[in-house]
């Protein structure tokens, strides 16, 4: 690990002012950053410990709920209000990592965790995201875990977060503080990026931007929400495919539906067409199967991950069905 300076940050202003400097990087729970530093993937000169500067409360607001960026993943997952009114968030969080990691991991850090593509994680391998211009090792290498939508010839990595899938489904907003002391709000769907020509950029967080909170608008999805995650082992593994599904029902009629997936793209992916299809339909297995068929129409698997298409289809069906028994 390269030697670095460690600074305790006291306020958000201080945090964003310093973060704008070259070689400065924030550390919250450290569960992702330290791994990246140990592997020389990220080599900051100055670490800004923002744990004391960030809000760490969960509050109700006029429009919904605000989760402070420093709230630990396990605290959020076990919070009464989240469990009762935003259960999808709790379910997604609990499907991620391990209890030890969730105890450390912050909400802000979860949004900013970097891909787990094995080529990204090994500095001796080519990777455009880590080292632009070196090529994509995964595109014709081991791409079983890689994307099936939204990728480019430069990068086929997927975003590893589970929480973000639920937040995408629930139309959350990311609250950001920048040096000009303004609060910027980025809707979740616009927060993460597709790789395109610049896979080194994961998201649209401004250079001086500090995530202070995530807002989730109140919704009627809490009765019928499900998170399905398929992975190579029962815990402590990233998603091959995950599906966040939520239904607002009137009797058996679907008033509104939300569907999002992890393990499929460079960013949390919403299935808008399938959501539109579900709207107004009866919540039956047949409807769900049709929605799942619409979902997979969009996909274009790589050399080693054709299985993700039927797996996604199955997972969408199961997630929608699970909404009814949630």
């Amino acid at each position, binding site marked *: *690990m*390269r*030697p670095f300076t460690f600074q305790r940050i006291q306020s958000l202003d201080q945090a964003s002012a310093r973060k704008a400097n070259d070689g400065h990087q924030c550390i919250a729970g450290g569960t992702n950053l330290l791994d990246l530093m140990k592997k*020389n993937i990220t080599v900051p000169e100055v670490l800004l410990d923002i744990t004391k500067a960030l809000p760490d409360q969960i509050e109700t607001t006029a429009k919904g709920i605000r989760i402070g960026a420093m709230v630990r993943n396990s605290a959020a997952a076990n919070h009464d209000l989240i469990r009762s009114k935003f259960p999808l968030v709790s379910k997604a969080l609990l499907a991620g990592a*391990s209890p030890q990691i969730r105890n450390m991991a912050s909400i802000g850090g979860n949004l900013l965790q970097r891909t*787990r593509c*094995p*080529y990204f*994680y*090994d500095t*001796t*391998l*080519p990777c455009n995201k880590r080292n632009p211009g070196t090529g994509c*090792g995964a595109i*014709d*290498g*081991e791409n*079983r875990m890689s994307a099936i939508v939204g990728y480019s010839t430069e990068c086929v990595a997927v975003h590893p977060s589970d929480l973000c899938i639920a937040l995408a489904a629930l139309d959350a907003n990311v609250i950001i503080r920048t040096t000009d002391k303004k609060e910027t709000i980025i809707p979740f769907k616009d927060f993460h990026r597709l790789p395109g020509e610049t896979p080194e950029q994961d998201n649209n967080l401004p250079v001086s931007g500090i995530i202070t909170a995530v807002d989730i608008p109140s919704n009627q999805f809490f009765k019928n929400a499900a998170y*399905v995650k*398929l992975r*190579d*082992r*029962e*815990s*402590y*593994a*990233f998603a*091959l*495919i995950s599906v966040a599904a939520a239904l607002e029902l009137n009797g058996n009629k679907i008033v509104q539906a939300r569907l999002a997936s992890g393990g499929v793209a460079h960013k949390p992916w919403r299935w808008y067409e399938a959501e539109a299809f579900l709207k107004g339909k009866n919540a039956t297995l047949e409807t769900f199967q049709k929605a799942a068929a619409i979902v997979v129409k969009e996909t274009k698997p790589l050399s080693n*991950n*054709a*299985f*993700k298409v*039927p*797996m996604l*289809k*199955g*997972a969408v*069906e*199961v997630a929608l069905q699970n909404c009814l028994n949630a």
Partner: protein
Amino acid sequence: MAEGRVEGISKVTGSGKYAAEYKVDNVCYGVIVGSTIPAGEIEAYHLDDAKEVAGVLDIITHLNRPSIPAFENEESIKKSGFSLPVLHTDKVFFKGQPIALVIAETLEDATYAASLVTATYKQSSFNVDFDTTHPSIPLAGTGKERGTMDAWSNAAFVADAEYNIKHEVHNPMEMHATIATWVSKDKLKLWDKNQGVNNVQGTLSRLWKMPAANIEVISEFVGGGFGAGLLVWPHVLMTVMAAQQVKRPVKVVLTRPQMFTLVGYRPQAWQKVKIGADKDGNFLGILHQSKHSKSVYDNYREGITRISRMLYKIPNAKTEEATVSLNLSAPTWMRGPGDCSGAFGLECAIDELSYQLKKDPVQLRLQNLATEIDPDTQKPWSTNFLNECVEKGAANIEWAKYRKAQPASVKEGDWMIGYGMACGMWFAGRSKASAGIKMQKDGTISVETAMTDIGTGTGTGMQNIAHDNLGIPKNKIKVNLGNSNLPAAPSQGGSTGLSTMSGAVVAACNEFRKKIAELASVVDEAYKHVNPADIVFTKNGVALQTQGNRPVSYENIFAKNNLEIIDVQATSGPGEERQKYAFCSGAAHFVRVKVHAKTGKVKVDKIVSVVDAGYVVNDKAAANQISGAAVGGLGMALTEEQLVDHKLGCVVGNDLAGYHFPVNADAPIIDVSFIGKPDVNINPAGAKGLGEVGIIGMAPAVANAIYNATGKRLRNLPITPDKVLMA
């Protein structure tokens, strides 16, 4: 239930020290730099940036390292038996091969400086692709062929299929680590993570051409081995060289990524099994062929087809094997080496045959098991209760009641339920070893041997055996292990540890009784003529069981003989019984799986393992071995696969997030039981080894259950959900 481990408290309180945890004065730290190409030659090192890092003491490469006497020239390297002459060659055989060691005052300095070391290479072509290479490698006969292949060409039923197993990595929790210090110019001391201190001592003695007595190796606590600690690996030599170079103690701890390339793995394997039976299900013949990967620089080979010559009565049997050389690091023994892979082919093929025959696979096995005579050597088995394992396992999982003959016939919603079973067998070995007993004045004893306890419970077993023999309470018996200065013992491996030690401990107990009789006779003449077996050890002294008690206090024994300590040693090993009998441990594994029809998810929700391992010295430690092996078997069956990038020529995903061994949530409650009948011929305890047999047969049991659940025959491990879906 037996009491816990002798080392339990030390382990859970952290007072027990693993190799890397010893505090050694003036120690400095070494970090290994690996090659970044899979094949070629090193042209130049670029060390300037690294040397500028504060705290860097030296960087050793093949150009400046102190030379290892046995690596003097090509010829001597060949003779040394050490396949990778680390830092004594400019050749690169695999990516990640150690090419330099950075030595610094702190681990942080060394780690940072190591990240700055680069080299220029002359690259050559390479090959890491097992699947496309093996078809062109010819097979050669192995083992004794029986009968002819023609004899069963008209068999009524034949199963004939190919099976594949991916490259698997041991990944014990404890990283391999070595601290080496030259105590004087010709005396070396090592704290090293390994499974056999005498093996490390002997290997270093050979390589450095110095007397073994001048090398002390300590491996008192071992955080798992699974076979990775049976060899001396390059990092150990590098640490010794470094300590020589900087004239200070040096510590090297492998990083987790290095654990994937520097301490072996289970090779990737291909198999083809063709097995025939008559219309009643009697096996007529088998052809078992296998090939496994190995490194270009190493000649590792494991007997994958051996199990097919041992398990069943098959009149005609032919086995063929080959290895496939790749630009990867060297594989090595991993729990159940050979047989574990071979059982996958054999036991799946038999399952396939059972469905053709429409015969219950339990019955088919019971009918064909060779429980009397070892078909390979034609010697009678000393004991083989595999049939009882099968019967008991079937009863415990209620096979007859729940297992349906028709695949894919039991459903619970989207879940398909199935049952599968398979057998495992492992030779029950025993080696020669020594043990010592020391008694203190207070009547407490310590039982000692150089053998390591890698988590297998060897120490606890030794305490149990000494207690059974001497009657001294367990809390007065200490166990000392894992130091090359202690009485010599072979490595802990191949399920021979306890079998070997039981003989040595019993011999030491007998020697101790003799010695006590001799010493007590100085106090009381009556002891001159006693049968040592007649001596009982009481709280304060010894007495006689039959000849009128005649107590003699420990105090008197020590005082009258002018002794500070009573110290005996004895050696014991296998004998004639090995000429007369064949020895094996056996296991039958039964599993129940749920397979999700829409997502391919497989959940093993019940495991029953029944093991014939002779007398069970400590049921808790023994059951612990079997359930651990079962989880290892689940990994082999469902999750473990080292990815290899064929274009770049290297392993990828070399960390615990990328390589999926099972976690607790993957393991159901594992119902372990033992037949428990002593094997009176193998050793004084009657105990056969059981470390490997728990994993052998587990993967095919799972694959067979998946077939029963889904009707899909999955012949390539690991059976990840994608394979289930796409089949």
